[in-house]
């Protein structure tokens, strides 16, 4: 028996609030695969790239603090949100490559008895599954192959760009212009991956409040791309993309002048379905765009 995979889980805020189904399905999948997740209950919001606009140094200190708690547990931090992944990995990269900045941050952390060392890896659950658990092993565990579905992968910007930084955080190199991790996961689960232009594009989430038209057009284009590629549903590793695609179809339809709507699953829900988890365990009842095929 191999050593059990154990991670420090950084849930982020969304999984605790507007996408409860994401947290439920993360735990359901981990249980099925025998992965242990220890929740970083001390962790704060990553700043979601907006706190960074207001106060960059404060966001560094808070993200470094989050990483400290993964380090003190001696674990790799696993994220389940692309934006958490980006902001945490970016903090790690900046502190690890700039001793002066690291010292400044540690000076603040020392006031509360913490020290950022840089000893923990930070990876997204999608890459933890692929790199550490392995697609072949997942394939063996599939009980309900997703063979009757055309599935449109939606990668989400903050897992694939900037690729130089992202590829430091996981073993399987991903190209931002032709990403394949999610496609390969779909195939491993027996599904049919559909290709469409918007799969590596932006959903508009981060400009939702201040630039609603831009955000709605981007959401609309993504949904349209998946619909025109004959997808039955979309899947994404990012809860923010999920929120946008799942809940904002009316604004999106209005913005692109066409009715766009389809079920959107979290990456964990898709894996869970194939592994035989119950729909209620995966929180499929928490979607606005109804998941009508289960």
């Amino acid at each position: 028996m191999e050593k059990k995979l154990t991670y420090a889980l950084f849930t982020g805020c969304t999984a605790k609030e507007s996408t409860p189904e994401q947290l439920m399905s993360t735990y359901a999948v981990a249980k099925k695969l025998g992965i242990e997740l220890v929740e970083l209950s001390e962790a704060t919001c990553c700043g979601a790239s907006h706190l960074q606009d207001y106060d960059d140094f404060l966001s560094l200190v808070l993200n470094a603090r989050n990483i400290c708690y993964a380090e003190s547990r001696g674990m790799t931090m696993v994220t389940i949100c692309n934006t958490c992944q980006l902001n945490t990995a970016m903090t790690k990269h900046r502190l690890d490559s700039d001793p002066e900045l690291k010292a400044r941050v540690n000076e603040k952390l020392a006031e509360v008895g913490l020290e950022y060392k840089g000893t923990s890896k930070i990876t997204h659950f999608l890459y933890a599954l692929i790199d550490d658990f392995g697609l072949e092993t997942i394939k063996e565990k599939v009980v309900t192959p997703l063979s009757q579905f055309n599935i449109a992968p939606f990668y989400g910007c903050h897992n694939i760009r900037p690729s130089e930084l992202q590829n430091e955080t996981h073993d399987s190199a991903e190209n931002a212009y032709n990403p394949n991790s999610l496609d390969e996961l779909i195939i491993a689960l027996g599904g049919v991956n559909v290709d469409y232009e918007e799969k590596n594009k932006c959903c508009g989430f981060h400009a939702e409040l201040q630039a609603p038209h831009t955000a709605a057009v981007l959401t609309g284009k993504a949904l349209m791309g998946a619909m025109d590629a004959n997808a039955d549903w979309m899947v994404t590793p990012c809860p923010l993309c999920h929120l946008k695609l799942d809940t904002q179809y009316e604004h999106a339809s209005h913005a692109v002048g066409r009715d766009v709507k389809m079920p959107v699953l979290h990456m964990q829900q898709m894996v869970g379905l194939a592994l035989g988890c119950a729909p209620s365990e995966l929180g499929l009842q928490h979607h606005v765009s109804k998941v009508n095929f289960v």
Partner: protein
Amino acid sequence: MTTITTQTITFNVFRFNSETDYLPYYKKVEMEVTSEEVVLDILNRIKWEVDGSFSYRRSCRHGICGACAIKVNGKGVLACKERMNDLIELFGTELTLEPLSIKRAVKDMIIDKEDFWVKHEAIEPYLISHIEEHPEMECAVTPAQAEALLDSDYCIQCGLCHYSCPVIEINDDFIGPAAFAKAYRFNADVRDDGIDERLDIINAPSAGVWDCVKCFECAEVCPKEVNPIEKITKLHNQIFEHGRAINNVATRHAVGFAHSIKKHGLLDEAELVRYSEGTLPMLMKHGKVGFKMFKVGKVVMPWNMPKSDKLDEVKALIKSSSTVKF
């Protein structure tokens, strides 16, 4: 020495002449491509060997003039720098050659870059310096001060980031990543006195930095590693540091994160929307979606708002590490 290999590649070449064609079309061209070639070699061979009317821009041939930027399978490239072998490895043996922006195509790969230059000019891309008419000493810039430009002066104005930016495609007002990076280049220059003037330009709703969707396409595509989104973040910071922030939905949205983290550690999503928009606009703009979300259990009530453990620690850090006020 590595051996030169050859592969047969099918190119779908975008063709359009705005003077004679109603619509663009794609011409299939099959070619033997060697591992030594770059995209510009292919453009040349299409013109020389296939169709002399094929048009594209090129000049320096070594990645400094920025003229030959095009898109291959949607990826923005400098044609003279991009190795064919890398593209074949990434996309396979069928490649689509397109201009940077299809809606701005004039002839084949040539686009009208007017909007790029108009926006470039809009941010006042020059030193604004209140210097003595008869200075008595030179205006020296130390190496450390030059470093502070963070390579923003490496921009060659190729337009790759501008025409890879999804917001540019949707919002005609948006100034765009290239011009923002240029604004930073002068704002960060110790000899410059125009920072507040420039910040007011890039702070404007719809045109300014707040409409950036943070997709990182600009950072990914830049052939000179200027990293425009890093500069966009710095401009956001400068707006607050220089007290130029306008009290609007965009700035409140950024500031709201600090409030929420101080109170809960985590972000109070509903409260962030209320804080950013104001109560009434929130209900009007987001009420319908909010209600749909509430019905399926996606809204956490204030009394159930989760909190981070060791919140005292978070509060202490926010107190000691905050660097700006709004």
